[in-house]
């Protein structure tokens, strides 16, 4: 490596590294620093005063600040868990439908599924709020046709969060289907040929060839699905405002409300740090789980 190329490397990297450094890495470090400070978002960073673990004690404490945060953390965990549990199996099922060649129309199905991923979440939220409308919405009308009574959907604390999971799954599953197809194309056809010669039926082939060889794809999908799910914001901000009775108060919405709208920057940052830590723990656990399975 000559000196000239060291300079070139510096020039090539400068724009991206500077921008990401200033607008991603620096704010991330500031969030961590602010989580130990008492600081109002309306004031300069220099106004912050050190409070040690005070913010963390408060967000896990018995006051309303603590109760709201812990509820938001739990809501986000439920929302994320349900999203992943629905998206992964559906993405494999839909991926197999697109990939198979017995029935024509796979590519068209992929187009339809993936197109929803292009739709702005704000439009998704608006449209689904009308679909869910208890009296004027088509969903309860269709349920009525098959003899199921009207559901409260977004208007009941018992069903609001799940209703938002459904619209999230509807929007995202096409993207994960494409990931699943990418995984399926990586499985050598010769494995299925050999299994067929050995007399394995389709179910056995799926169980012993497809699923194990899709493990890496599923891990990747799970990580992306988790990162996407904790970002849910539009349906909550637009339709439910965290309600009814706090049942859809998820972290992205809650952190923004505390840290920006109420300008409690220190508390909001402590919540953001907890979100980051939870993500790191969950993602590491997933990797450890899959690696252990691999070595078995």
């Amino acid at each position: 490596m000559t000196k000239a190329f060291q300079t070139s490397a510096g020039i090539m990297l400068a724009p991206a590294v500077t921008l990401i450094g200033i607008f991603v890495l620096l704010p991330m470090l500031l969030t961590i620093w602010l989580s130990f400070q008492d600081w109002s978002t309306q004031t300069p960073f220099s106004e912050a005063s050190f409070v040690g673990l005070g913010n963390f004690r408060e967000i896990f404490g018995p006051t309303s600040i603590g109760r709201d945060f812990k509820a938001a953390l739990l809501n986000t965990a439920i929302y994320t868990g349900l999203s992943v549990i629905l998206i992964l199996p559906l993405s494999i099922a839909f991926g197999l439908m697109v990939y198979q060649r017995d029935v024509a129309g796979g590519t068209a199905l992929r187009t339809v599924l993936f197109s929803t991923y292009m739709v702005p979440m704000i439009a998704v939220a608006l449209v689904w709020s009308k679909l869910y409308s208890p009296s004027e919405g088509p969903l309860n009308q269709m349920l009525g046709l098959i003899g199921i009574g009207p559901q409260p959907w977004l208007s009941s604390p018992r069903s609001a969060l799940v209703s938002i999971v459904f619209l999230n799954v509807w929007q995202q599953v096409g993207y994960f289907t494409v990931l699943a197809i990418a995984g399926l194309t990586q499985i050598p056809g010769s494995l299925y040929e050999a299994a067929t010669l050995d007399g394995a039926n389709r179910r056995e082939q799926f169980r012993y060839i497809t699923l194990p060889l899709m493990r890496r794809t599923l891990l990747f999908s799970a990580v992306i699905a988790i990162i996407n799910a904790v970002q849910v914001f539009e349906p909550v901000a637009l339709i439910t405002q965290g309600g009814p009775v706090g049942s859809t108060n998820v972290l992205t919405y809650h952190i923004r409300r505390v840290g920006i709208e109420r300008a409690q920057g220190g508390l909001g940052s402590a919540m953001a740090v907890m979100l980051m830590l939870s993500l790191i723990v969950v993602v590491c656990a997933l990797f450890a789980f899959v690696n252990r399975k691999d070595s078995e």
Partner: protein
Amino acid sequence: MSSATRSLSRKRPSGRKALLATLMLLVAVASAFPLAWMVLSSLKTPAESMQVPPVWIPRTPTFEAYEKVSGVINVGRSMWNSLVIASITTAGILVTSLMAGYAFAKYHFAGRSLLFSVLIATMFLPPIVTLIPLYRMVGSIGLTASLAGIIVPNLANAFGIFLMRQFIAGVPDDLIDAARMDGASELLILFKIVAPSVAPAIAALALFAFVYHWNSYLWPLTVLQGNADSYPIVISLSRLLSYNRGAVNTGLVMAGATLAVLPPLVLFVFLQRFFVDSIVGSAIKG
């Protein structure tokens, strides 16, 4: 698909094929239904959209709602703002990603893998984690309430660098070395030789970035703080609902939503090949 699996498939009973075809149709219908409902509802009369039980197909389709929507929000201005935000952000991402991707793919320098890992890690950082200090930072350099405040923090991202590195790594070194012999500068080599040979990946990244930033809501909402002149269409759309809460004209909201959905959806329909390829590429190579 190999010939063996094909011949296998011929042995499948036709009953199972019919079942599979039915399932596929059901999935497609369920997936397309919400958007179809959106478009149909935007064509209803106000009376029709309030009917219980709901009417599916408007009896006398009307563009009334589309005309009215412009009276509530500034559609032209909002669409223009979205176009400006998405285009400039995309252009910035393309340039910064190409340059950094080239450096990571073709240069050896101290700390390369460490720097790359740090950058890639930011890909997994949800935006809310940096939102509070970023809001303050952008405010203190006087960019709040402006399009620049939305655009500038997003001019580079890790996904773009990752994607470009993956594809530029596949460009033969001989090609680059030959150009160097001819005395071409590194920037010239990047934009005249390397970039054209990874054109499909560039197209994919451009489309991804454009759609992502057309649809983006959290950051513009936080930065703009009520400056209606700078609203992108997605924010104007959310204002439509709060206006609508009293007036209850679903058609209006659906017309607005249809307008906002149209540009990313049209781009996708014409260029989906690139979208799909780049997702597949980033998943397999990653």
